[in-house]
Each structure stands twice: as structure tokens, then as C-alpha cells.
């Protein structure tokens, strides 16, 4: 078994095109680390995209892109499911179709509802900002409800939804610091507890981008969206 594993490892070539700060790229890092997969990380400069990126993601020209034995996969949630189906250890999706559907639903909720609303609260101004905050509050309430009686969205262990929400654990405090406004506050005790648990996981502890560097980056982005009048 051990020899077979070594042989398989030697034959695998896994590359991940990402950036140092992208939360979407980080999800893929977490999944690869969770399963103990060796890979080459290539940090892209998005203002000067590499030929490799343009070749491997011609449709969107975005990161992350996972390249497995020369074959590219794009879109972080698609990549996560591919990783889970290809490397069976430490699964992030359950076997049961209904439970799988639930994980996918919440991962999608983060990407299509929660994250855009919080990003809107960070970047918009005036009435649009008020609306984004209201939407974020609603979305956070729903996420809080979903965590009732659970340690992780996946139950006792993390699943696809946890990996999707994982950005909250290390990035929301950056937003708090930059805006001076705490959006994930004491109204969401379960979510705060989950963020603590998630950030203590080995995959998160060892692999999040440096806080100070993130503050500098998002401070600059904030100023760009809120030019001094």
C-alpha cells in the first residue's frame, strides 16, 4: 500500500495558479493540504497574467486554476469537488445525496449571497452601502441559524461549506480594522465560535496570508472605493 502510494505520488503533477491574497485560491490550498497533496503553487500577478494562466483558463482568465497532470480545472467550487473525487482521504463531501446537496447549497449561498453582500458593504457608499449592510445582516442571520447544534457546517468535521465560508475566519477582521465597523459581531455567537474553531484547524493556522499584509492591501482598496472628497 505504501509503495503504491509513493508510486502514485511520483506520477502526479499538481499545480495551483493563485495569488497570495485571493480567498478563492486559498480554499483550494486548504483542500490540498487537508488531503496531504503535494503541489506547486504559482502566484500570479493579475496585472500581468502569465501565458500559462491565459492558456489554462481562456474563458475567464482568472485564478484559481488547478492543473492536474497537465489538465486544467477552473472555478474554485468546481476545483474543490474535483479534488474531493480524485483524492478520497479526508472527504469534504458526504456520501449521502441529501447531505451533499445541503453542503453545495451553503457553499453557493456564501458565494452568491453572503460574500457579495459583505463586499458591497465594504466597497459601496451611501444608499447602496446601507442596502448591502442590510442584506449582509439578513444573510448572516441565516448562516447563524444553520450552525445551530453544530460545530462545523459539515457537523463534527469540516465540509465543502466550511471551506467556502472559511474566508470569514481570517479576512473579516481585516475588514473590521480597515472600516472601523464590525459586521460579524456579538449578534452571531455561533458564527464567531465557528470562526474560532476554523482558524484553529491546522490547514487554516498554517496557511492564511499574513494579517498585516492583508490590512495594507485592503486599506488601499478601501481608499480606492471611498476617495476623499
Amino acid at each position, binding site marked *: 500500500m505504501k509503495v503504491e502510494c509513493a508510486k502514485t505520488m511520483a506520477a502526479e503533477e499538481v499545480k495551483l495558479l493563485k495569488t497570495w491574497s485571493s480567498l478563492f485560491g486559498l480554499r483550494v490550498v486548504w483542500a490540498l493540504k487537508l488531503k496531504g497533496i503535494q503541489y506547486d503553487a504559482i502566484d500570479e500577478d493579475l496585472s500581468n497574467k502569465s501565458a500559462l494562466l491565459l492558456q489554462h483558463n481562456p*474563458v475567464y482568465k482568472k485564478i484559481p486554476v488547478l492543473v*492536474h497532470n497537465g*489538465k486544467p*480545472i*477552473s*472555478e474554485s*467550487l*468546481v*476545483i474543490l*469537488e*474535483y479534488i474531493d*473525487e*480524485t483524492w478520497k482521504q479526508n472527504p469534504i463531501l458526504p456520501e449521502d*445525496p*441529501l447531505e*451533499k*446537496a445541503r453542503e*453545495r*447549497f451553503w457553499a*453557493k*449561498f456564501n458565494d452568491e449571497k453572503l460574500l457579495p453582500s459583505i463586499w458591497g458593504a465594504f466597497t459601496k457608499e451611501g444608499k447602496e452601502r446601507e442596502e448591502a449592510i442590510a442584506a449582509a445582516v439578513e444573510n448572516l442571520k*441565516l448562516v447563524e441559524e444553520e450552525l445551530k447544534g453544530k460545530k462545523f457546517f459539515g457537523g463534527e468535521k469540516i465540509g465543502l461549506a466550511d471551506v467556502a465560508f472559511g474566508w470569514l475566519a481570517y479576512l473579516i477582521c481585516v475588514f473590521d480594522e480597515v472600516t472601523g465597523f464590525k459586521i460579524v459581531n456579538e449578534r452571531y455567537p455561533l458564527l464567531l465560535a465557528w470562526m474560532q474553531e476554523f482558524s484553529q484547524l491546522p490547514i487554516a493556522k498554517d496557511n492564511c496570508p499574513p494579517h498585516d499584509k492583508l490590512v495594507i492591501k485592503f486599506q488601499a482598496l478601501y481608499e480606492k472605493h471611498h476617495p476623499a472628497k
Partner: protein
Amino acid sequence: MAEEVVLLDFWPSPFGMRVRIALAEKGIQYEYKEEDLRNKSDLLLKMNPIHKKIPVLIHKGKPVCESLIQVQYIDEVWHGKSPLLPSDPYQRANARFWADFVDKKIYDLGRKIWTTKGEEQAAAKKEFIESLKLLEGELGDKTYFGGDNLGYVDVVLVPFYNWFYVYEKCGNFTIEEECPKLIAWAKRCLQKESVAKSLPDEEKVYGFVLQLKKAFGIE
């Protein structure tokens, strides 16, 4: 198998059509419940409290929401017949990528075509055609996106075919001129009973859209 399957749906919804097609492909008997979206049923609000949207698939009393998730669920539960997703992980990832592409592009761009005018509509038409051409590229010389048989991407995309008439009328353009291969593919899909019986008549859809435009004061 006497399994209880209920589908909460709205007849012109392309998202609902996806689920109808998937259930038909698998030969599953189910109860179809038409929702009045201006007066949503208690059942809909109970089964999809988060989005309050159709379609909702209810299987043995448990809801599954979001059409792509529903189609995958159906494929996994009734895996013995007419598989929609391939078995190879890379091919599955490819199918998921393109299904996601359809979701990101076709509905919103199509909607812009029938709800806007002038520059905004022109931009939407351009990007819409570009998106369809990318899909044509992915189809290539295959009979279906799924190969020899109807697959996940076919089920996800074909419901928009009978909305093409709406976009063409409102946008004043012909999709077949730009994307003949895709139209040929859609017509092949319509030869399948599962698809033909799941898609309402395009004139009926257009009539519905005209009513909506009137109701919302859209030119």
C-alpha cells in the same frame, strides 16, 4: 418504487425545466405543483425559506433547492438510469464548469436583452452571442454536450432554447445566424421526449413575457 417526489415549479422557468427534464430522463413519477409567484404557497415558503424561489424538489418530505443542485441530486439518487454526469472526475469537473458558465451568463444576459434598450441591450446581445459561441466550441462535433447521450450540460442549457424566441423578438436579431451549431443541437435535444414534454411552447413564453413587460412598464 413508490417514492414521494414533488416539484414546486412555475411553467416558464428555465430552472424548473431543468428539473423536469432530469426527472423525465430517469423515468421518475412525481407530483407537479404550479406556484403563483405573486402569491407563494405556504409549502414553498416552508420548503425554501432562504430564497423563497422555485423550483423546489421535495423528496420523501425533504427539500432540495437550486436547480443545478437538484439535477445533481436526481442524478445521484437515481444513478442506475440515464446518467447525466460522466463518471470520470475530470469530465465531471468540465461539465460542472460549463453548467456554472450557463448560470453565470445566459439567464442574466437574456434578461437584459428583453428588459433593456439601446446601448445596454446592444452590449447584452454581444456578450450573449459570445457566450453561446463559447458553448458551441465546447459542444464541438458531439451530438450532445454529454456525448452520445443527453448529459448535465444539455439539461442545464436546453431550457433556454424556448426563451431564444423571446430574446430574438425583443432584441431584434437571429440567434441561428450567429450560432447555427447550437440551434442544431437544441433541435436534436427536442427530439427527445424528456425535453419535448418539459419545455413549454415558445409563443406561450413570449406571451407571458409581453404580459410581464406591460405589468412592469417595460417598453
